[in-house]
């Protein structure tokens, strides 16, 4: 039995508990925005793909931390990328909010068969079309890079697991395993939030869309500010 095996369980449970606290607060706005973007269509597959992408990114980061055996070397080399992803997430939520409110010039892209023809409107339509749920996977891969305290903590453990490994390969798999355990633990909370925000159960969606669009615009601006200041 490997000495990291109990740690896998610890980080699976940590992911689960942190998911319902920290992740709902920090990643919740993005997940809610994605669900609202689906306009009452089934949210399960897109959210599973989004979460799968996120966990794959965590796994890669964990593997790298395990190889390097250093948390600070890894994070100092990706800090600019993370800053960019935070700004991107803000822009994404902001645009979704503006589009939902019908305040962007190329029309209400969230309406069925919206008339917008720009790259952005096409991309949003693809994002909201059920048949192209696969776009949620690269989105999850990218947003898995969002700076996050508990993810950093799990990466510290991955780096330590790598330091105690006998080979580079063992370090890679130890670090990767820890981050997969952590990432999988966070999935139930974000799936639940995504499902609740799917609005299939809600009759007066139009009112909710209006309120949500306003909140999304505020949250998008907040994320952009965080990204610039990060």
């Amino acid at each position: 039995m490997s000495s990291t095996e109990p740690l896998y369980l610890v980080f699976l449970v940590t992911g689960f508990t942190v998911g319902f606290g920290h992740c709902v607060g920090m990643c919740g706005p993005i997940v809610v925005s994605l669900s609202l973007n689906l306009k009452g269509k089934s949210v399960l597959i897109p959210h599973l793909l989004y979460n799968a992408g996120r966990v794959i990114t965590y796994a890669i980061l964990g593997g790298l931390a395990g190889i390097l055996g250093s948390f600070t070397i890894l994070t100092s080399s990706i800090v600019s990328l993370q800053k960019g992803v935070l700004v991107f997430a803000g822009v994404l939520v902001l645009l979704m909010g503006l589009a939902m409110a019908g305040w962007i010039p190329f029309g209400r892209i969230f309406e069925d068969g919206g008339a917008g023809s720009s790259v952005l409107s096409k991309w949003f339509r693809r994002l909201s079309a059920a048949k192209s749920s696969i776009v949620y996977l690269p989105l999850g891969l990218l947003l898995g890079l969002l700076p996050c305290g508990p993810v950093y903590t799990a990466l510290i453990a991955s780096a330590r697991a790598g330091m105690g490994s006998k080979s580079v390969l063992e370090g890679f798999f130890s670090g990767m395993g820890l981050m997969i355990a952590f990432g999988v633990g966070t999935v139930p909370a974000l799936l639940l939030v995504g499902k609740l925000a799917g609005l299939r159960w809600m009759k007066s969606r139009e009112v909710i869309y209006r309120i949500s669009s306003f909140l999304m615009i505020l949250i998008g601006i907040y994320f952009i500010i965080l990204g610039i200041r990060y």
Partner: protein
Amino acid sequence: MLKRFWITSQNFSILVSVCLSIVVNQGPLREAIAADPASGSLVNCEIQRGPCTQELAGMAVTLDILPRPVKAMKDLKFRVTVSGGKPVRAAYIDLGMPGMDMGPNRVELRPVKDNVYEGQGVIVRCPSGRRTWKATVTLPESGKAEFVFDVIY
């Protein structure tokens, strides 16, 4: 009809709870709550100025973090000095944020000389902008001493 109303109300209240959780977890509001004079300042250690000492079971426990200024996302050396007694086993430090679960981040300490223990660790950065961290020093079978301080991002 009553059942449908009940289910819809229940779902709506869950969504409202989730939204509230999202709002309350956002940095500025939490900062405002933390800064509320009525809630009292949590910080009990000016770690940027120098080591901090607390009493624990008749012993004086001193925490120092180097190098200064103490910054997040940097490799840090944690030094604990115990005077007036000797821990039964090696001490350790749990790092966390007051009121926010950041996951388990433990610094194992090793004795470097009589009553002095050291270990390496990292204080991570919270994107919300919160800078207040808590180091809980545990001396096995003696108890815990909590040091709350601000770090630099």
